[in-house]
């Protein structure tokens, strides 16, 4: 059985599992695309969510040729769309329980 392990990653771990150079990861952090705990790269702590966001940021950067500022904006907006979509679905379901056809 596969079990999830380590939930937190250092700067080095993140570079390792994403196969990104430290330069790219620093860009991603400096643009606030992910916000690790800690004040400098040696003390940064990332979680699994931040790994997937970093990977997504790099994909968008490479595939669509968007600069990092644009990526930060795009990811914020994509997140917002996603959370509004989820909330909308939840509210619709709750409304359906109250409103008869």
């Amino acid at each position, binding site marked *: 059985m596969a079990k*999830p392990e380590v939930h937190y990653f250092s700067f080095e771990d993140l570079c390792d599992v994403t196969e990104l150079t430290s330069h790219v990861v620093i860009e991603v952090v400096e643009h606030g695309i992910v916000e690790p705990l800690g004040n400098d790269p040696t003390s940064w702590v990332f979680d699994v*969510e931040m790994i997937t966001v970093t990977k997504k940021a790099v994909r968008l950067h490479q*595939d669509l*040729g968007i600069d990092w500022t644009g990526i930060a904006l795009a990811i914020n907006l994509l997140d917002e769309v996603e959370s509004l979509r*989820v909330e909308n679905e939840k509210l619709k379901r709750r409304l359906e*329980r109250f409103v008869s056809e």
Partner: protein
Amino acid sequence: MNFKDYYKILGVEPDADKKQIKTAYRKLARKYHPDVSKQDDAEAKFKEVSEAYEVLKDDGKRAEYDDIRQYGAHDQQFQPPPGWQSGRQHGAAGNAQYEGDFSDFFSSVFGGQGGRRNTQSGFAFNERGRDIETDLSIVLEDTLADASKTITFRLPSRGDDGRVTEVTKTLNVKIPSGVSDGERIRLKGQGAEGVGKGAKGDLYLRIRLLPHPLFDVEERNLIITVPLAPWEAALGAKVEVPTLTGKINLTIPGDSQTGQRMRIKGKGLTKKDGFGDLYAVLKVVMPETTDDEIKQHWEQLAEKAGFDPRAQWSNS
């Protein structure tokens, strides 16, 4: 294999210039990028568009493709011309995420996998396997305690000949209790195989909580709608209410209203320091039909109650 009309895929004319091709590609890439689009076939479309651009942006490849297109553009079933050999050694594809994923048509025209080719190079070549990201749908009950789930997902696999095909993998996964909707779980080394001494990729699961027939989720709390007869709402009642872990008795006070919420402590979802709460939301419902005798009772009630449910309207 099917002939691919790269011009049609990008929606440009066969005589389109580089700038038009680039613009068309960028527009479609944004539209179908799997990180942006919610469309089911977004990834397939994105690959198709990337492949088309890979060929049309490169003068050499485009010229070769145009030759082939002259030859086979009208055949759905494409066979390379007899003795066809790609005239050039093409460099690595530019698309980092999807390289090695180009179609059979692309491979038959341009050879290799369209991506990093290494099997004939003679050099030791190591590459980490690709990470896989996939959704895992679970029911609310699964989140109460550690749950075991069997998942099936597709991942690329490189054969001995260096060709990449998709294989289906089945895996048992332990889902820790208290997971929430949208949360990600990483399973180290469960992604695609590496090349050479390259490590295996990882598997990232995104948890999706399936809608429950009775309960709605609000952070770590649950909400259940409790239908009440008008007299239960008026007089109060003891009602048996289902929770995720069994039934409980809930005392409804008299003079209750539709929409009123009652908190049942600790009957919500698991959280770090215990459990969230269950909220019972009351909903007064009418019987579907009313016989004459009951109607008489309602009439008596209407005369005596002197209740104006629309009193607020006259104030405004």
